[in-house]
């Protein structure tokens, strides 16, 4: 065999063919996902786009126009009564800041075929708690999470619903106007 050039030739051809097949398979896998909902590295672009869109939305909503006017995102937290809502449905009370912000989510994400959950995570005296504001169900495996931290102060909580005050405790033990920090966490995935 060692001296048989033809046998070597056949072997080499076989190896070359196998390598060609492997390369073709790798290229195909890199080129496109197998199904729209398959979690794989090939979804990085999609996930990245989702993440950027979500982060940009939270950044825009957290814009504070003046020292006396909280951002729209903060107003949504302050106006929230503590209930969980379907992300595509109206948030009660209608017309309140939470409802206005929920409509922004719907316009920017829902209309583009992106599902989302919006939750708040905050410290409590005994640890931490998380509650959903908008809930669209369990996210798919390739969902991405973006977040924004909101610091709450005493005077802002003065006008908040009692149910919200009961849920989010005052973490200030020093009698200052610091109240608590809330992480607004948004989970996004392609429908």
């Amino acid at each position: 065999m060692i001296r048989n050039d033809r046998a070597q030739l056949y072997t080499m051809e076989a190896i070359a063919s196998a390598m060609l097949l492997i390369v073709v398979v790798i290229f195909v896998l890199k080129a496109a996902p197998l199904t729209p909902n398959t979690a794989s590295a090939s979804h990085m672009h999609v996930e990245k786009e989702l993440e950027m869109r979500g982060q940009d939305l939270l950044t825009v909503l957290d814009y504070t126009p003046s020292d006396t006017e909280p951002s729209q995102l903060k107003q949504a937290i302050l106006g929230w009564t503590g209930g969980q809502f379907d992300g595509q449905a109206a948030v009660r009370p209608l017309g309140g800041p939470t409802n206005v912000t929920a409509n922004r989510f719907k316009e920017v994400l829902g209309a583009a075929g992106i599902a989302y959950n919006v939750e708040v995570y905050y410290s409590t005296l005994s640890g931490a708690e998380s509650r959903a504001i908008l809930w669209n169900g369990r996210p798919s495996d390739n969902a991405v999470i973006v977040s924004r931290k909101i610091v709450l102060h005493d005077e802002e909580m003065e006008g908040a619903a009692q149910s919200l005050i009961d849920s989010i405790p005052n973490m200030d033990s020093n009698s200052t106007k610091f109240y608590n920090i809330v992480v607004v966490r948004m989970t996004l995935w392609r429908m």
Partner: protein
Amino acid sequence: MADVIRDEKGQLMLLTVFMIIIEVVSFTTILNSMIFSANLQSTGLEESKQEIRDFRLITEAEVIKAAKYATLLNSTNQTQVSEYFYKYMQSYNDTIKKIYSARGASVEVIINNMSLNETTSNLTVNKYHVEWKNHTFPEGSLVIPMDENQTTNQSRLMRVYGLIYKIVDGSGPSGKLNGTSIPVWTILQNPVNSSVTNFSSTMNTRNASTLLNSSYRNYSGGPFLIDVSKLVGGNRDLILNESNNKSIIVHELIEPFYYEQGIEMVVQPKIAIFPESDSVMEKYYADGEVPYTGLSDNQIQNGNLTNYDILTIPHEDMDTPSSRKNTIIAIEAWVANGGVLHVQCAGTHTMDNAVEKWAGSRKPWYGFIGINRSVNASNKIHLKNMTYIKLIDNVTRFNTSYSFNMSPPVSLAGLADPGTPYNPLTQSHNKSGMLGNMTRQSTTPAFSLRRNESQVNPAANILGIATNATGTPVYIDADITLDTFKDAQLMYIEAPYENGLVSYLAGHDQTMREGGERLIFDNFFAASMRRSLVTTIAAKNINVTIKYYDGKVRYTDTFIINS
């Protein structure tokens, strides 16, 4: 070519070259993919960068907040301001640590040092011309009640104003107590019905003269307090002697009392009335035993107003004669420069007309505030026996929309605020906020906002509306044009005008209305605050170090925030 086909060695070499090419291509592709993946934002350090960016941004914002809140203490005690700042940052640090620890990261905020900057300046005029301050009154501080703890006798209540004027006045020949000016506080309260939870304040007091009758008392209507630490020498006795002479009851705290919404009068306002001789205005100040000066047209036109803080004008027609033009121009300029103008009766709408006609408006609205006169049309409109004043309900000052009453008692034309929070002009001595009907005069013209919104001073605050005896608002078509639109009939309104303040009060003679005179004297505080020097201590040049570690990235940065 035919040789190669038959030459198996040649084929072998070609195949080997071909395989090497495939291997190189494959290797390059895989390597490229790895490099691409490694540089994606979601890979490696990008997540840490985002967290660090968030951490730094909100820390910077909270350092500025802490400095601002510390400054708002209005304390002249540097230690107090500094302690508040550090306590705030400690609470923030404790909470942010918890938030990040849930993500497996540790963070820390360290305030390395900061400097405290002390400045003294005139009080910046705000919308309400007063500055709310919190204050703890120590045991032994004096309390001068302004409700049934004092009396419901109006003349005695008015004498309290003369007393506090003397206490604050440290130099005036008529007001000197002992040559020392002693600040007097009033605690601001919403003088409306008992559904307002902080309407009255409970203090543990006893009679200051006899030191007897200790008990917890509820005080409403904005009592006056004098901090015992300011009562040096024999000033306490001088105040009690003076109050005894005036038959004014003074209590004394037997335990400390803390209040958030107080205002402090440290300078006695100088009061002028116009015209120079007016029996109604003179009676107010005579009842209160408060010094005043009458000014003529000539004196006002010659600039004498600049020597005074308050100008009160009763039922004078300011729109005529035309020779009054220069008086109006001088008054308008004085108000714009910070004067406090209080006008009553026929002076109200004629003042707006005159300012609009002669002084030219510095603002697009009509006159100082933008009101219409309300009239008694023949057999159609009768304000007769319906001229009670109901002081307007308010919302809390901390609400983000605090300058607006969200549910005004009647629909209001124009853009004016239906209420103002804890304004000294809305203190009354009764719990309902209802001031009675005129006792010796049956008809009072009220006024209404001009229906065209652009003609109304948008910062105006409606302080009192006209009601009937049961408190039902008078809501009728009574303006001078009888335009078929029903309007809320207003009795008391104020509006800032440039740096000054204008208040209009309906009614000919407030001595005829139970509690009415008080609405004139509370202008003291608005005028006094404007002349107050305010010392502000602010945290500056704050040196901060932040630390972040999440197992992959360790980040430390030190920066300076100049709040």
